[in-house]
């Protein structure tokens, strides 16, 4: 019952992280089904409607069930310790923020067993298509509302904690960058999640209460949904990457034994990215039939957002430069993040250019782009952070050999999985199709092999985590030579309650 009623930020952090790990495997299983069907031309395993359910739920589970809760788990564990606070500002609300999620996902996943199956209109659930859905529809809407409430409550907690409960002497510009990225992410969440709630509520009323927000016949506009959705959707993708930037900004200085290069610049760059993220949304809709002025505006702002992102990459490289690096598993994942996320950034820049985007839009080129930034980006950062802080949280060193195996297998297979998808998109393969023309067969085959390898490699992650929780070489307080920050002044594992007296920060 400790786990049901806990208001302790460490326990709640652990709950979020374990929940996210479970969701990662559920979403991963759906991805395996997708790649199994796409292994060769023809439909061998599933029918097209089930395939659409898999692509839809794979995304919903990974975005709202794996990536976001994982980052919230990191925030819960680390933000109070990093700012020298005893816990989060609102501990009971913190408990509820977590426990909403298993209910929301039980509801969403149960739709698989309803008549007509799970949602099948893509995670973006555009009308009119989504309004053709059957019994699952209200459950999906309600589940999304619950996830949004969980996120907003969590975000409020983080903002209030950071603003109010920093130890004396910890000015804002002395906070670890991970705390900064979460502060900014929390504002993005508060601004964006209610917009999604509005959009899906309008879908609900269009279906059941005879409104016509998105029906042309009734005087509405299906494209308005896309504007509203992506006004949420673009900040959402930055919500999924800013904490990753924060994690990597903690790891690289530690293993380079050199302070983070350009701390102030990193803070301003993160804030710029967050601000710009509100004025780029229509780049997800370039083919919708926008006026030329709109297309040009969003092309320019989308290109512009590459600048602060690039600044961050340069700062990480400058942190490495003339450091004294060692390559333990967290550092391996963090460096792979920098390289592979940058590749995802390159395809993103290409997508920004509207004349060529008309050829990329809704193809596997987009799928390749977002999987590079989300899997080799966000997920690799989450894994890196896991390896980095597991010794602190559990008091045991994880098995470094298994960690390195996990790293190399994951990195090789993830590239076999997603790099060929660039080729498929360029060659003309649309997305969200269960079967394809013969010229796409070879690269699909390669990609599916990569998927099976990548999926299997994650079993190593579970083995490492379970072994580490249960035992292992005792970890010191500092754990990593070169680690800086208040969390490393605590024992490994830290006491249940920490910083009941505020620490001194110089």
């Amino acid at each position, binding site marked *: 019952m400790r786990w049901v009623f806990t208001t302790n930020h460490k326990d709640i952090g652990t709950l979020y992280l374990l929940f996210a790990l479970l969701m990662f495997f559920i979403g991963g299983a759906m991805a395996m089904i997708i790649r199994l069907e796409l292994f060769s031309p023809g439909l061998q395993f599933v029918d097209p409607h089930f395939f659409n359910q898999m692509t839809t739920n794979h995304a919903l589970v990974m975005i709202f069930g794996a990536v976001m809760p994982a980052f919230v788990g990191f925030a819960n564990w680390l933000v109070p310790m990093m700012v020298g606070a005893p816990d989060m500002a609102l501990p009971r609300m913190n408990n509820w923020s977590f426990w909403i999620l298993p209910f929301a996902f039980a509801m969403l996943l149960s739709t698989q067993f309803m008549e007509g199956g799970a949602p099948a209109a893509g995670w973006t659930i555009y009308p009119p*298509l989504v309004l053709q859905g059957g019994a699952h529809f209200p459950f999906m809407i309600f589940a999304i509302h619950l996830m949004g409430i969980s996120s907003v409550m969590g975000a409020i907690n983080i903002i209030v904690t950071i603003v109010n409960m920093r130890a004396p002497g910890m000015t804002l510009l002395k906070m670890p960058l991970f705390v900064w990225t979460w502060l900014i992410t929390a504002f993005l969440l508060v601004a964006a999640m209610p917009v999604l709630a509005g959009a899906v509520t309008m879908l609900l009323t269009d279906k059941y209460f005879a409104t016509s927000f998105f*029906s042309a016949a009734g005087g509405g506009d299906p494209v308005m949904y896309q504007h509203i959705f992506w006004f949420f959707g673009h900040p959402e993708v930055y919500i999924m990457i800013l904490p990753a930037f924060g994690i990597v900004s903690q790891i690289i200085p530690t293993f380079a034994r050199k302070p983070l290069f350009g701390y102030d610049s990193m803070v301003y760059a993160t804030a710029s990215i967050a601000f710009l993220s509100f004025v780029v949304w229509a780049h997800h809709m370039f083919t919708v039939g926008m006026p030329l002025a709109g*297309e040009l505006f969003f092309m320019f702002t989308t290109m512009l957002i590459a600048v602060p992102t690039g600044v961050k990459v340069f700062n990480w490289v400058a942190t490495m430069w003339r450091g004294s690096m060692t390559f333990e598993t967290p550092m391996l994942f963090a460096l792979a993040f920098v390289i592979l996320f940058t590749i995802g950034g390159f395809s993103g820049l290409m997508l920004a250019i509207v004349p060529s985007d008309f050829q990329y839009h809704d193809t596997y080129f987009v799928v390749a782009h977002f999987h590079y930034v989300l899997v080799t980006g966000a997920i690799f950062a989450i894994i890196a952070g896991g390896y980095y802080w597991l010794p602190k949280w559990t008091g045991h060193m994880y098995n470094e050999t298994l960690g390195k195996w996990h790293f190399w297998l994951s990195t090789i297979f993830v590239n076999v999985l997603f790099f060929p998808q660039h080729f498929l998109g360029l060659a003309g393969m649309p997305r969200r199709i269960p079967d*394809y023309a013969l010229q796409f067969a070879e690269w699909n085959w390669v990609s599916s092999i990569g998927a099976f390898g990548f999926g299997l490699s994650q079993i190593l992650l579970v083995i490492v985590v379970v072994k580490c929780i249960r035992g292992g070489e005792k970890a010191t307080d500092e754990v990593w030579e070169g680690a800086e920050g208040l969390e490393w002044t605590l024992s490994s594992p830290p006491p249940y309650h920490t910083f009941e007296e505020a620490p001194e920060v110089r």
Partner: protein
Amino acid sequence: MSSMCTGDHAGDCLSGRVKRTRARTARLGVAALGMLALLVSGAVHAGFMDVINMPRGVTPISRVAYDQHMLMFWWCVGIGIVVFGAMFYSIVRHRKSVGHEAAHFHHSTFAEIAWTVVPCVILVTMAIPATKALINMEDMTKSEMTVKVTGYQWKWRYDYIEDDITVYSNLANSSRELIFDGDPGTNENYLLEVDNPIVLPINKKIRLLLTADDVIHAWWVPALGQKKDAIPGYINEIWTRIEEPGVYRGQCAELCGKDHGFMPIVVHAKSQAEYDDWVKGLKKTSEASAAEAMREWKQDELIARGKEVYMTACSACHQPNGAGIPPQFPAITGSAVATGPLAVHLDRVMNGKPGTAMAAFANQLSATDLAAVVTYQRNGLGNKVGDMIQPADVAAKKN
């Protein structure tokens, strides 16, 4: 971890380590390059490399899209070489195991300004040709003919405004039959062929008006370089000028339900004269089909024809065996409509059922096709009603 490299022999140990690390790195590098060369040559040989880049296409727009794409690609490669080069150099040189000591610098205002301003300048350089290209792509003026394209679940309809002809394009049966059982490898144009391709004349600026009947679709032919959404209740415009004759294949590019991957587009680009012949031919065919409806048809003739029509127009929802996917797509086998009064059955097929996914086929299918498919449904798919309907009676109902 590096405890061996302390004390009196630290100097020897480090240089030995450096040498061994360098030798090992060199060997690994050669091995990696060798493997890469092997992989690339294998890939080229197996045809992988044919399917690696965007086509240049056959229209001014497709070529501009390709040029923009390649320009951005090379920029990214260049930036990647610089950034990743610096990273790899640093990983090799600035590591503890070769004895490199960490420096302490951690800021440089000059660097921050430089690597903010220089990317901005690069972006402006990229944005100028992209802007010019887009302005040209969105210029719909001076078009010479118009085709209205309507997306349906799951087919396309083309209305040639000036020439007053209509074409419905469904996925061809020769592909449809191979989806679930059969070897797609036996069909070169698997999933990219239709029963009725459209013909467009080359060297003419053609305006395509895009809309949809049910959900959002998108019309895309990669070789033509244009893609735009087809939205119910709204009309989008694109233009194309095809400069080389040939056959160009495309697909729907917006998730539109279960058969989103099964509603391809086939464009035959021909000379003006051949296009005019095609238009004449289509008009003759519609006259011929009106004529063929007037003769007396035998039941087995109708059933055979109806089976083909069913496969093309009905099987996506009602399934090839008539079992349907209840509740959204009812079964035909044993259904009250298909085994009940003929008039009700015919009305359902011709006029659809509002509020459900069942569309009206009166305009999509000829009188003969309608009579054939109704007769087939009543006498095949496990039903044995025994009756039939003549195309002439259906033609009378249509008018």
